């Protein structure tokens, strides 16, 4: 057991899976970095966010493939490779670039098994980054996991800490279906996401939520960075005698519907904190699930806390106002309890 940042845990899982199965390859822009530079030094970067550093050195250029800036092309290569015997892990640097390669996920990876009558598999993992907070503005801050969650045939993972990231990534790579693995940029070095993890490799099954805190008054569903915001609020409110159950679904597809429904059955109140979208997002999806299947348990309106329906602004104070805040989450929780939202600040 050792404490590890989420960044290191992801790197470790990649290494472990590449060692375990030589059909696992990595492909993406600058995932090694440095090729044909004048210094001769390779493997200098591990991607712009430094996640895949060291893999080239260990596994060689045949399995760690730096691509041209051709998202549609290399994603298609990854899908074709996955359908023919490799198990590619493709990196899409920012999920915001999905508009440059979307067809290969939406119409190819997601559908070939179904369209081909079950006679093929597409064991592809797309590792990509999500999330605001880095002042990266509107084209590098989105959390478009609602787009891929909506697509039948894709599985979608949104880990919130190092332990989950390592175990879920191992599962993703061993899974025979295409998986979109969404890493929140702010979590790579986030202290609370750096947790104890076992020495030996392990997997975490998809579709099993993690109960971050247990509680009896209100259920809060949150993913990725939002899990930590929710947990912070839960801790603060517990000091005020309010008991919050924070559920981190970990995978949005498949979704652990039962855990959410059971929790709401016992608390009767639901707040969803979600960075994906103010419209047709993951938050609305969970709200609809509960409004249909745990309706009779509900004691209060469901609250969905999301960014506003506007692009992510660049300017830091605006961006902070855009990201769902602990204050807004606390306010929503108190509101569902019929309490004055101002209590949160007190």
């Amino acid at each position: 057991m050792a404490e590890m940042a989420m960044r290191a845990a992801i790197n470790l899982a990649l290494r472990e899976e590449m060692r375990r199965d030589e059909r696992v390859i990595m492909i993406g822009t600058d995932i090694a970095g440095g090729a044909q530079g004048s210094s001769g030094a390779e493997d200098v970067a591990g991607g712009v966010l430094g996640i895949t550093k060291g893999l080239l050195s260990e596994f060689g250029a045949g399995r760690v493939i730096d691509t041209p800036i051709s998202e549609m092309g290399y994603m298609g290569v990854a899908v074709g490779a996955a359908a023919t015997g490799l198990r590619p892990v493709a990196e899409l640097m920012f999920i915001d670039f999905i508009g440059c390669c979307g067809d290969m996920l939406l119409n190819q990876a997601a559908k070939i098994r179904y369209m081909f009558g079950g006679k093929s598999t597409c064991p592809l993992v797309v590792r990509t980054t999500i999330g605001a907070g880095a002042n990266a503005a509107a084209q590098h801050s989105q959390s478009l996991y609602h787009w891929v969650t909506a697509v039948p045939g894709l599985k979608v993972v949104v880990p919130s800490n190092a332990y989950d990231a390592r175990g879920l990534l191992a599962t993703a790579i061993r899974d025979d279906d295409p998986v979109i693995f969404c890493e929140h940029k702010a979590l790579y070095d986030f202290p609370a996401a750096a947790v104890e993890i076992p020495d030996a490799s392990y997997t975490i099954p998809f579709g099993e939520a993690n109960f971050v805190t247990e509680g009896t008054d209100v259920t809060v569903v949150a993913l990725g960075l939002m899990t930590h915001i929710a947990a912070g609020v839960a801790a603060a409110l517990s000091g005020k005698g309010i008991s919050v159950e924070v559920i981190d679904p970990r995978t949005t597809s498949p979704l652990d519907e039962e855990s959410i429904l059971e929790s709401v059955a016992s608390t009767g109140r639901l707040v969803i904190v979600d960075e994906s979208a103010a419209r047709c997002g993951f938050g609305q999806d969970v709200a609809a699930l509960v409004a249909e299947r745990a309706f009779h348990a509900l004691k209060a309106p469901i609250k969905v806390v999301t960014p506003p329906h506007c692009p992510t602004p660049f300017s830091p104070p605006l961006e902070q106002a855009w990201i769902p805040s602990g204050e807004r989450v606390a306010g929503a929780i108190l509101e569902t309890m019929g309490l004055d939202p101002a209590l949160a600040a007190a």
Partner: protein
Amino acid sequence: MALSKSQLLEAYRRMRTIREFEENIHRENTTGEIPGFLHLYCGQEANAVAVCMHLEDTDYIASNHRGHGHCLAKGADVEGMMLELYGKADGLCKGRGGSMHIADVSRGILGANGIVGAGAPLAAGAALTAKTLGTGGVAVSFQGDGASNEGYVFEAINMAVMWQLPVIFYFENNGYGEFTGHDHVVGSKDIAGRAAGFGLPAVKIDGTDFFEIHEASGEAVQRARAGKGPTVIEAVAVRFYGHYEGDPQAYRSKEELADVRQNRDCLKILRQKLIAGKKASARELDAIDREAVDLINACRETAKSAAYPEASTLTDNTYVSY
């Protein structure tokens, strides 16, 4: 590349079978029994057949919306194909895919594709697998002239060059993308020339001449197998029917339509060459023609009377596990 008599007869048989398959659909489509959009391969048969003669089951092809010929040439089961086109449970894709998504990965067929140009990166991916696992396999993507304008096709070509992948990008230039002439949308008027700038051999050939196709694609496959990288082939071909079944082709002159059937019919041309070259007698070829007709008729009858999939199986195979 010398071809034995049996190889030549087999090539003729395949082309003839594809022709008959497509003509059957053309006729039957008016009955309304065949669902969906249909894009016929009539006139282009020599391309699929001559190219696929160089390929094994362990090699891959990626096809496009006009994919019946490619799939049949690569060894897809004829009856399974017919059943699939009729949307039946025993179709090659259990009725899920239909004409635009026919596939048989066990035969190295990565599928017809409803997305123009998507096959090029997919084939490059199959070639990456072959290279990485050292299977000795090659991959071919078949696409039209229209697909040559999709940027990701160029992306795939560039990567194939960089990584020296065993892949052939085979452009069947039948002069039209849907209803629009090639020259209206290919600024350079030349697909092979445009591709050559990417740093790989790119040749332009006559897509109505079985032998020329066989030669050019044979060289390309050999080069790929030898680890010498990708090739682009532009084959100038002809399309007999409309873009899809139902297209009245007002944009093509009667003269052009008559000319392509009379003078540029790859099947006729092969037949004449086989007879003239004393590789086969008219009688032998007639027998093959009849067998093809019988086969297709039998498949059609099977397909017509076969069962549709059960609604209870609707969501099967969305995932391996979920």
